[in-house]
């Protein structure tokens, strides 16, 4: 017999180095590990993008306040609870009077004291995915505990729960931000401090309908201002 095979000790003795299969296996494990590490990068980039957008969002909100002071008639903010303030699409875009920008703002307003010319404006800056889309504040009737940091909606309202969307109480202007969504329940960054009643959410629409499959709200920054209107 020229060669003896099959004995365990003998086989082990002949295979002290790694086989190709072993090396490939090791590389596969390494690859999976690297892939897991790489998965962290998009999250970090998203955080970075958010911080960039937040600064710009503040500028847009302050511009929005200036525009509202100049051109929103007092008579158009008649209610004592927040309602969308009508402004043309071009007036709401950033840069102003532009129709080809993805950034802009929308306004909810209510009157506080007409005699003293006091109004509350909630200005939300946003970044749309597409120029042709629009952004709107959509509301639901909902009472929640003032300290509750979880908000559960009906199955048909799930589309409103989008990460980063402010949840605005129409009665007070208080708002919280959605941090996480689990099916019909959203986790808020803090309680609204009021019982709710009517809650507004900021969503992106296309052709008047909510953008299907949107998980992240277009909202960037929220500014709540107590101001007078010049018209």
């Amino acid at each position, binding site marked *: 017999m020229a*060669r003896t095979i099959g004995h365990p000790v003998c086989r082990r003795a002949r295979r*002290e180095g*790694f086989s190709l299969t072993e*090396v490939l296996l090791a*590389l596969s494990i390494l*690859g999976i590990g690297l892939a897991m590490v790489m998965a962290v990068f998009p999250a970090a980039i998203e955080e970075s993008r958010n911080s960039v957008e937040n600064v710009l969002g503040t500028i847009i909100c302050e511009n929005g306040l200036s525009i509202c002071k*100049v051109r929103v008639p007092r008579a158009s903010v008649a209610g004592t609870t927040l309602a969308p303030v009508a402004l043309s699409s071009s*007036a709401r875009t950033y840069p102003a009077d532009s129709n080809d920008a993805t950034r802009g703002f929308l306004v909810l307003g209510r009157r506080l004291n007409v005699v003293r010319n006091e109004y509350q404006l909630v200005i939300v800056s946003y970044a749309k995915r597409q120029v042709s889309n629009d952004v709107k504040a959509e509301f639901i009737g909902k009472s929640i505990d003032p300290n509750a940091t979880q908000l559960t909606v009906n199955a048909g309202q799930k589309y409103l729960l989008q990460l980063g969307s402010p949840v605005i109480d129409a009665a007070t202007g208080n708002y919280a931000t959605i941090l996480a969504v689990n099916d019909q329940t959203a986790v808020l960054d803090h309680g609204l401090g009021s019982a709710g009643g009517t809650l507004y959410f900021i969503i992106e629409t296309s052709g008047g309908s909510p953008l299907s499959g949107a998980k992240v709200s277009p909202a960037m920054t929220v500014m709540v201002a107590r101001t007078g209107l010049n018209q």
Partner: protein
Amino acid sequence: MIRHRDKTRDLAPIEPACNTLGTARLPSMSMRKGKAFTLIELLVAVVILSLMITMVSMILSQSQKVVNVAQARIRSNGAAANIAEMIRQDLRSVSKNGILCITDTSQADRSPRMLFTTAGVAHSVTGTTRGTGAFIAYGQVANQADAGNPANRILWRPGWVLTASPDAGTQPWMDIWQLDFSTLQGYTRQQVNKDVINNSAFTGAVGNLRVPPNTMTEINRLWQVATTGCSRLSIMWTDGNTAGGLRWYGRDINGNLNPKDSGWTGRNSTNLDDPANLSTPEYDGSQSGTDGVYRVLWTHHNQSAWPKAIKVRFALRDPAMPAEFQDVDYEVIATLGQ
């Protein structure tokens, strides 16, 4: 260690690995013969590893690029936010007992300009003088340290304390204007042009701005600089006319004279120094050449016709940004103190 495969040995080993009884050979022999990779195995492993390293480095490179852009945007946005806040605060303090003037000249490095009076206690930066108001100006001027580079122009924001009696001990004054509101209110438009807009305090200071500075005087002048790398600037105004959208007048960021400019009602472009016309803002759009393209002047005579809001649009260029992200436009819309 690389072991070269020996076909002869593979097919018919000269030395059997084990004897016929199945007992192992001497350990020292088996270690020596079976420990290393073959050349093929190593080559395959190296190729696969190289592919993986290439893929990872590509991902890292892309990530680094995104991070660099994000960092540059953060710097740029931070500068813009500071400028925006400064403009808003300045415009909130505007005093209609003084003047507001917006000019646009054909001189690329001196255009456009906005200057206005503010009310409230103002402190000199270079001395101890205080005043009850200030002249504030915004404009785009050449950076003398890099004068030939339009992208590195300065967003100029000087401020002069208005006082008729500056502290004698602080000369030479760099930011004090020997004038008070009562004197200013007696000025005709021509006097405003001569003694304010074309005063050497405005025109002369521009030629000395240098960033980075080389001398102590230049360091002292840095209070005039809102930012460097301001590649474009536009200053427009609105009278609150909302027909068809909010109307903005003046030259836009692309250098085009806004068509709506000609539709500005309430302006006065004839007999500008005629007292009978003082109740309307003075608009001179007939200028040409080095003197300017247009000049708009509001005074205490026509307070109700002052703009409702000012729109300042500027582009910032960060040299660290990739070319495709250069010249980021920002827009600040601010209402005037009513």
